């Protein structure tokens, strides 16, 4: 892709990035940060490309290290975010069943 097209995409992505998180409540700051953290683990794609084209052993070793690090970021990031959100979810379920029981009692 040529430079101008890349620049266009970048600028548009900046605005999308600003826009999608503009109205987040403080309760979700942590999961959102953690989720965004997982997304930049996509550098794994770059690390795979570099490792796949490596011919010298040293280059390959460094590239594989990058693959390990990037995978840790990507996989760990999504798992830890899911765990955080699971707690919110579980809490909502408890509240809901609690309310349902109350409603049943009436």
């Amino acid at each position: 892709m040529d430079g101008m097209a890349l620049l266009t995409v970048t600028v548009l992505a900046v605005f999308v990035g600003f826009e999608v998180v503009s109205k987040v409540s403080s309760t979700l700051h942590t999961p959102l940060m953690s989720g965004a953290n997982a997304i930049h683990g996509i550098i794994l794609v770059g690390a795979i490309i570099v490792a796949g084209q490596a011919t010298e052993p040293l280059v390959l070793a460094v590239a594989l290290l990058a693959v390990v690090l990037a995978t840790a970021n990507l996989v760990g990031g999504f798992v830890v975010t899911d765990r955080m959100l699971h707690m919110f979810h579980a809490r909502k379920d408890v509240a809901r069943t609690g309310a349902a029981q109350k409603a049943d009692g009436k």
Partner: protein
Amino acid sequence: MSVLDPAWTSLLYLAAAVCFILALRGLSSPRTARRGNLVGALGALIAVVTVFMSVRMGNIPLILGAITAGSAVAAPVARRVKMTQMPQLVALFNGVGGGAAALVALLELGHTDSPWVRLAIVFTLLVGAVSFAGSAVTFAKLQELMTTRPVVFPGLPVVMAVVLLAAVVCAVFVVEAGSPALAGLLLLLGLVAGALLVLPVGGADVPIVISLLNAFTGLAVAASGVVLGNVLLVVAGTLVGASGTILTRAMAAAMGRSVAGILFGAFRGGSTAGSTAVSERPVRSSSPEDVAVLLGYAQRVIIVPGYGLAVAQGQHTAAELAQALQARGVDVDFAIHPVAGRMPGHMNVLLAEANVPYESLKEMGDINPEFKTTDVALVVGANDVVNPAAKTSSGSPIYGMPILEVAQARQVVFLKRSMRPGFAGIENDLLYEPQTSLLFGDAKDSLAQVLGAVKAL
């Protein structure tokens, strides 16, 4: 292995990018957050499968082995980590991502003659290294492997300026000539700069720094996308960079601070440094039984949890105490300061884990008017978020931060480990007020003793 048509590759990358946008939007609302995260993971899966099909490459068994190794380390840690240690884990994952981006850029240096690509390489190297080292220091601070207080030494600004200047000179040479040795030096300078950037930051501001470094890593990933000519990396990195910046500002606003003030406050001379001296003024210390009597015969109690509760893993005991009091007819709520703990929303996550009902968790704006009619405010391991200095003393580093108005309650009980000032390192005058009593000890132990005494009433 046959190679995918470039048009298909682009379409699949586009699908992954859309997944990431939907993920961020989903994460912005409680109802859709969990699904949003899964959509993001789906996007990542699409992208990784696509890259294997779209580029002719070797070393595939080794790469798959490295991916397996990375997952095998990260997934169990992420699954088992205690809720209190979540912030440092996020910092750690962020740091390794930045490190990966810097390594990718370093390796691509030999593959290009374009000065523009070299510029992107230099940017990725430097920002990735800053993010890696900064996150490592953040991790050490949160894990209490080192002091949580701001680390400053005379001449720090000078050292920082010299390092940055050297980095710029180095960067210019790398862009001009593409020397790998100088690129390595640039990486080192980036590491030093990252450490120097975070060392002077006081503990209470660490969450904001994690968020800022998160945005940095996003930018490094975007730049590495320019280096590799990969649109997906550019889009995903830019998304994280932009949303991370907004998030950082939102967090700082919730604490009444500016991002610049947090990063450079310590440079300017001890704004977050506070005092280490323990005051000699008298305080009223109390016994678990006294506290139990106060609580058990009150009509309205508000519990204010802070980091001390998280460290002591006392959330379940706190929830039990609330239940025991409610069983006695006491009206009990939890007041959640937006930045209590080490990450915004930390307390919500922690108390949700202990099954405290959602309706009992009150946000600052809703609960503050109720302190006036409250009999006892029980502050468990929180300090800075209830410190009246934020309202009254304009010279204080936390001045301007919105606080929970516990001082208006008829009685205030602090459960504290010691008289040491809080994370921000500032004395809390509320501790010396006549309506305040203190119960020293680990938050969980103290809560358990109070709980026992309440049950015995």
